[in-house]
């Protein structure tokens, strides 16, 4: 399987930040998004995600809810508090299909969420929608 990045496109859009502590899931998301020509950068925990987002604001964040150090809810809250990322769309990934998790995510300003296990196709569709790109 090969990703076929369309460099010009990615430059025009900016990069998607993917934060998940599970390397396989991280790679899965990267593969899918890159196959659609998006530029992707990754973070292994909440702290790294915040640092990256702070130094170079992404166009979209795919955020795992349960992460070490700083969890997804807190990351989302801090992204919203920072003017540079206050408007950046955030898609949450949650392994706990509990309404309370979804509520917590939405309360701190997540735009969308997917319950694990999710379909990579579905994720890509949501990313496109959030970025106002055609599917």
């Amino acid at each position, binding site marked *: 399987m090969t990703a076929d990045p369309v460099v010009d496109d990615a430059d025009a859009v900016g990069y998607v930040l993917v934060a998940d502590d*599970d390397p*396989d899931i991280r790679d899965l998301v990267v593969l899918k998004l890159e196959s659609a020509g998006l530029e992707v950068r990754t973070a292994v925990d909440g702290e790294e995600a915040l640092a990256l987002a702070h130094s170079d604001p992404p166009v979209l964040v795919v955020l795992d809810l349960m992460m070490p150090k700083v969890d997804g809810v807190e990351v989302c809250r801090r992204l919203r508090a920072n003017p540079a990322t206050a408007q950046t769309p955030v898609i949450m990934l949650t*392994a706990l*299909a509990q309404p309370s998790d979804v509520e917590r995510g939405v309360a701190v300003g997540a735009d969308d969420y997917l319950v694990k296990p999710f379909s*990579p196709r579905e994720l890509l569709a949501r990313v496109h929608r959030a970025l106002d790109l055609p599917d």
Partner: protein
Amino acid sequence: MPRAVATPTSFAATQRRLIGTVAVAVTAGVGVLGLVLTARATGVAEDRADGMAVAADEVSIGVATAEAATVAYVVVGDPADLDGFNSARDRATRGLDELRAAAGGSSSLRNLVGDERAKAEAFLDGYARPVITLRSTDPAAGQARVVGGEGRRLYEQFRQAAAATVVAVESERRDAKQSVGLTAAVSGLVLVLVAAAGIVIGWRRRDPSVAAVVEPLDEVHGALVRVGEGDFSPRVTTDGPDEVAAVGEALNTAVAEMDRLTSLQRSRVEREQMIRDVSRTIREYLDVEAVLNLAARELVGAIGVDRCSVLVVEHNTLGPIVAEWVGAFARPLGTGSREQLPAGLDLVAQPLFEVGRPLVIDDTASDARLEPEVREAFSDLRIRALLMAPVYATDDLIALVCLQVLNRPRPWSATDVGVVESVAREMGVALSHARLFERERDMVGQLRQLDEAKDDFVSTVSHELRTPLTSIVGYVEMLRDDEAVTPTQDQMLTVIERNSDRLLALIDDLLTLSKLQSGPFELRFDPLDVAPLVQTAVQSIEPIVTGRAIDLDVVVPDGVPRVAGDAGQLERVLLNLLTNAVKFTPDGGRVSLAVSRPQPSESGVDDVVTFAVSDTGIGIPEEEQDRLFTRFFRSSSAQAAAIQGTGLGLVIVKSIIDRHHGSVSVASAPGEGTTIEFTVPVAQHWGRTGSDVGEAGV
């Protein structure tokens, strides 16, 4: 006061004097009689209020004990707690009957008592009894109900109602007490006016003999004024004309009687009030140490002794001091000490162990019952007077309350002994409660911890399983999107996908079940229209019916009342049952869902609506039917037919229906089909579907 000069009398004057005196005597007599009668009447009102306070306490103790016994029985399963529950329930019921009788014509009190009764019954008969019954058939389910907050909530509602009654009763008691003083004052005033009228009658006649009448009357009047002020001590000199003397004597007798009655009543009221205050405070502290220290403190204050020690008794042997309170001039013997006490105290206390009555020693220096060395030991400790009372928890002698007076003898009064006995009895009740309460707290705490641990565990497991599944499902999907995959490889990927879905269903079911069983009161009970519930479930099942040659019949008759339940959970029940029915029915078969009109439930408490899901599928062998609702059980016919399932669907169904206070039953024959029926109680206070469309809506 007018004073007249004595002059010789005449016949006519004597006649007038007689008329005047009689007038005074009659009016004064009527007044005194009125005073005594009103005092007696207020005494009755006060007795009634006292009776209510006692009955209110009985109800509270009864329900509190029943609550503790329920928890104890459900947790431990000891039949003794069942007896405890029954007798506590009887006690509460008796108290409620007495309360109702005593409330009499007061409508506000009657309402309060009625509310208290309703709350007590909701707890005792609506919750505690069913829980006990449930415990006897299904211990785990019984315990789950106790761990949830339902019982606590109902008990708390009762307690609030009981507190409202107590407040009303106490205010009535205060009114009754005040009215004793008030009536005495008012009657006194009436008497004074009446007597003054007599004096004025005599004075107006300007009779020389009036002085003979007036002087004693003057005295009578003075006495009456003081009586009117609540001072019942004055006595009238009874000289003067016979008639006047008679009035004075009558008044003296009346005042003496009033005096006696009032002091008796006051001491009784004070004593009862004290016992009640102490015992109420005691009951509020359900902690053994606090109970004992509090009782010791209250007794030192109430009886006026130098020291009150509470000693443990085990197997009729005195143990160490566990609680103690001292007055201003005494030092504590020290808790934990046993050596401090006279060596012969066991012997002294022996009769008390045997007969269970208080031991009273007015003077340890001269009491002939004491051995010389015991007397000496008391003398070393400067203990001159001693009053000991046994404390029983249920039937076990568990402690001694020991009141001590230092340096001087004390002639203990019957009231002293009575108060100590009463407080000791209340201590016993409080200690029994405290024991039960501690046991309950420990047990419930353990169960809660266990439950929380399980809940956390399941959530974690769910998360830990979902994460690898995400990778499996995600990569499989991406592989299948790849055009390089051969048809054989695609088939293999389908197998991986199907098994991933199966694993995911299992995780979801486990998580659902765990949540249902650990947080039963997260359910929202609303009045629900049956038709939309059924419609939602049928819509959800359509995707799996489509493409199968299966008839799906749904029958919901008109006029089915709303049921009380959680819409999401009841939809899940219907969906689980319909999914099973479709899954186990071969093509050409039929699945039906039939709702029937309400009928009385087995317990006869609420009417129930019955839902029946039937299929013409493979059926379940009879010997397996009673295991259908246990976790991970899968019928042999399902396994033989290689139909997948988690073995949790029906467990979830039963769990949800149990929470709804309904029942589930199964009827099935292999090869013919299966019918699973469940009931849900109708919503009691809401109307029927259709007849009140304005309120409709789930």
